[in-house]
């Protein structure tokens, strides 16, 4: 017998008698790993990584494999339904697609007529690669309001990088960075945008040094050469402190700074406000370690920062992002091999053009909710969720009458769930497209059954900034499920905007690909297309910013009347910003550390994933647990001024005893309650969404950290379940 080979497709087909194997791209998180889908008798039998895919090199994650149990889940919605009882009563009747879409279309037109198109808000959550079609629909319909996670997740990274250096600098793992600084990210669990854990691991195997910035010990932190254990949400202070060391010690790239930076003088002045004594006091990270990390990062070439959503779900997110871009830039690591590269997307119709942003009239653009307040967000089509809840509940500044939530469950995932619930309960008409009746869908008038990635043709990742486009191929059909793309294409014709859409969505795919001179049919025969890889483009073209330079001093922010330089601001609800509250709520709660198996509020009903995490877990330092009378495995109450939830306690010594770590996105699909226990363990029952606690430029709600108290649910001596 021949030697054993990894991913031996031929042998696999012979041994198991599969009928076919389809190459496609997963979408169980925010990115597309190459997969091989084995099919027998019309059913998916096995999902494996595609060894030829340059993104994941054949490896996968638990969620990817769990897709089988998602696609064939017995509770999955496989036909449209209409609610027949009161909201949240769990009573539904089956209706046809035609009836569902006609009803939705009739409502949309009715509200547009009576209150303007802006009264109809579309929304998506993590985005199942449907972002561009949702925007296209809203823009062609005339609504400036698309409710997304973009105010505090990935959107800020795009917005801040675009205004500062022209695009999102993605770590060039392929060329093996010699130093990687992982900042607020656990990419080996979460697979964040444009990155996968595999190439990161490979870079470490090639000898990269590792710096980890994280308040909690992760395995990445435990392997790191330096672990900076910062106080949650003090990232900008730490980054500015590191810039201070790098500038003071002359470790920056002088040639780059001289020629390609805008605002060096004012930036140096700003950074001088952040000597390490002050930084240590604020961040709780030891001065000596900060110094060492700054030196290691600045003197090891090439180096890269692997950043994550941890720095964005904060009130100071624009500054956090921009101070990290400054670190990348001044050390000469932007757009160099093995540093962070401004990759170029292949020459297709880009997401902005396909999203039809140019087709929204000026008049409608001006009505974007929060546009006057969160001005950077508005420019990128992003709105702050509270503005939508207010427009529903108080009808200010104008009434929002209809929500169409497409793969999003805001009751579980947006700040201040109680308010989200009130808004969803009150809105005139709520349509949802999802896999299951989630807590948000439970309040809907109509729920549509959407397709998983296994059930659609699409150009995956084309809105990403890692430079690839990937053909996602339809493998199976489940019930009457339809992709959001096809559904919106159909609905467009029913609301009178068919002229901007197609008779069949495949033509939409052709439209995206047209500038490359290929059709979807041809692209489907390919493995992937990668844009041209070019380094140091700034030397010939400059950066794509108003000054053509890296704008450490942002002319865009200046025009919008924001601080043009990165700055640290103490987070709301911290021991220092709210000392009185801190007396009553003496712990810093970090909401939502990443765990394998779940993507935000998804996955709790998938058996092979739920088995990995049966209960919501809060991590408590053993000293804190002792003080609070909490033992390992106890159900405990976490309480903030806004509410209480229950998690199971786990004692964990790898963090400051003043911090506790909860999980986010929890609801209980198995619950008898038609609302699926939406309050019980939902960390957003505790979070705050008030405007003064949002990032002023992006409107990001500060849900990552807040003050809490914690105590056993059952008085000692009594047993729980």
């Amino acid at each position, binding site marked *: *017998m*021949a*030697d*054993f*080979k*990894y*991913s*031996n497709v031929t*042998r*696999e087909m012979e*041994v198991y008698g599969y009928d076919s194997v389809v190459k496609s791209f997963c979408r169980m998180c925010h990115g597309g790993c190459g997969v091989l889908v084995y099919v027998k008798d019309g059913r998916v039998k*096995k*999902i*494996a*990584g595609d*060894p030829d895919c340059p993104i*994941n*090199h*054949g*490896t*996968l*994650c*638990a969620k990817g*494999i769990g897709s*089988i*149990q998602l696609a064939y889940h017995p509770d999955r919605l496989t036909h449209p339904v209409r609610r027949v009882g009161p909201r949240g009563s769990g009573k539904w009747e089956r209706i046809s697609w035609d009836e569902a879409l006609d009803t939705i279309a009739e409502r949309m037109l009715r509200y547009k007529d009576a209150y303007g198109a802006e009264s109809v808000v579309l929304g998506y959550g993590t985005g199942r690669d449907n972002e561009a079609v949702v925007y296209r629909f809203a823009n062609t319909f005339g609504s400036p309001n698309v409710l997304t996670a973009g105010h505090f997740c990935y959107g800020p990274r795009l917005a801040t990088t675009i205004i500062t250096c022209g695009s999102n600098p993605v770590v060039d793992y392929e060329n093996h960075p010699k130093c990687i600084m992982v900042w607020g990210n656990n990419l*080996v*669990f979460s697979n964040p945008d444009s990155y*996968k*854990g*595999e190439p990161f*691991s*490979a870079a*470490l*195997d*090639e*000898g*990269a*040094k*590792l710096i980890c910035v994280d308040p909690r*010990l992760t*395995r*990445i*932190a*435990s*392997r*790191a*050469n330096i*672990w900076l254990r910062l106080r949650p949400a003090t990232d900008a202070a730490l980054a500015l402190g590191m810039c201070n060391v790098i500038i003071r010690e002359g470790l920056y790239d002088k040639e780059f700074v001289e020629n390609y930076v805008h605002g060096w003088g004012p930036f140096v002045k700003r950074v001088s406000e952040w000597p390490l004594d002050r930084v240590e006091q604020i961040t709780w990270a030891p001065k000596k370690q900060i110094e060492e990390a700054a030196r290691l990062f600045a003197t090891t070439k090439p180096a890269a920062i692997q950043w994550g959503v941890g720095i964005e779900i904060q009130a100071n997110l624009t500054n956090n992002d921009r101070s990290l871009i400054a670190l990348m830039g001044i050390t000469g690591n932007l757009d160099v091999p093995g540093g962070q590269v401004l990759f170029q997307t292949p020459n297709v119709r880009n997401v902005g053009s396909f999203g039809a942003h140019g087709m929204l009239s000026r008049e409608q653009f001006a009505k974007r909710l929060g546009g006057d307040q969160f001005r950077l967000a508005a420019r990128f089509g992003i709105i702050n969720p509270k503005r939508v809840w207010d427009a529903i509940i108080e009808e200010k500044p104008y009434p929002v009458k209809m929500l169409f939530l497409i793969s999003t469950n805001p009751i579980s995932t947006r700040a201040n769930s109680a308010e989200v619930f009130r808004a969803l309960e009150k809105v005139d008409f709520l349509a949802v497209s999802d896999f299951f009746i989630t807590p948000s869908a439970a309040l809907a008038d109509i729920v549509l059954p959407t397709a998983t990635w296994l059930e659609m043709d699409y150009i995956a990742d084309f809105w990403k900034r890692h430079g690839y486009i990937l053909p996602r191929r339809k493998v199976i059909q489940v019930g009457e499920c339809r992709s959001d793309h096809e559904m919106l294409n159909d609905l467009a014709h029913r609301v009178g905007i068919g002229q901007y859409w197609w008779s069949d969505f495949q033509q939409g795919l052709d439209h995206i690909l047209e500038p490359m001179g290929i059709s979807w049919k041809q692209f489907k025969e390919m493995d992937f297309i990668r844009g041209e890889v070019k380094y140091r483009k700034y030397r010939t073209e400059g950066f794509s910013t108003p000054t053509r330079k890296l704008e450490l001093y942002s002319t865009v922010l200046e025009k919008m009347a924001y601080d043009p330089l990165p700055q640290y601001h103490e987070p709301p609800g911290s021991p220092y910003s709210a000392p009185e509250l801190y007396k009553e709520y003496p712990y810093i709660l970090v909401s939502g550390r990443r765990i*394998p*198996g779940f993507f935000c509020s998804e996955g709790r009903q998938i*058996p*092979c*994933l739920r*088995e*990995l995490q049966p209960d919501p877990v809060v991590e408590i330092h*053993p000293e804190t647990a002792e003080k609070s009378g909490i033992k390992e495995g106890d159900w405990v109450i976490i309480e903030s001024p806004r509410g209480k939830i229950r998690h199971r306690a786990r004692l*964990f*010594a*790898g963090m400051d005893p003043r911090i506790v770590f909860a999980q986010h996105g929890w609801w209980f699909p198995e619950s008898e309650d038609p609302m699926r226990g939406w309050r019980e363990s939902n960390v957003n029952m505790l979070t705050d969404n008030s405007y003064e606690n949002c990032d002023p430029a992006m409107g990001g709600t500060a849900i990552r950290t807040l003050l809490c108290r914690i105590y056993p649910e059952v008085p000692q001596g009594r047993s729980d379940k």
Partner: protein
Amino acid sequence: MQDLPGGTAREVGQVRKHALVIDHDACWGCRTCEVACAQEYDFKSKFLLVTEEGPSQDNSIHDYTYRVNVCRHCEDPPCVGACPEEAISQRDDGIVVLDADRCTGCRSCIEACPYEVIAFDEEQQVAQKCNLCRHRVDNGLIPACADNVCLAHCIYFGEPADIEATIEGKRKKRQTI
């Protein structure tokens, strides 16, 4: 596709030794191997469990690791001798096989296993362990957990000595702790 490390030609007739070796330094605890194992068995059982270990109370960070708990197919497996029913045997290629049909559920093997990787199936009242996907191995396929699923590439299948050499090579190259 790449050849397995150490996959060199062997003399005819020489029995190849099969083992699973885990490079625990590299394991991130992502648990993909666990779900890959479950998938191989139609999500009805799995024979592998990843656990988190440490950090110890003194806040020493480097004892914070993950462990892939799965049968090591030991060279001299104590479970084989412990089983009064001869339900566990070791094949010439090293794979330690538990035949559930012969198991009476006495749990002697569970006590004997130094790695605590034999489980008890309460429903069937029998012991359960990884048989190294022998249905795959005998057909020239790599066991499910080791077949290029791990994003850290930390699960190896093959000749233990060859694998150890590969891991040692990686260790020398790594600059992390």
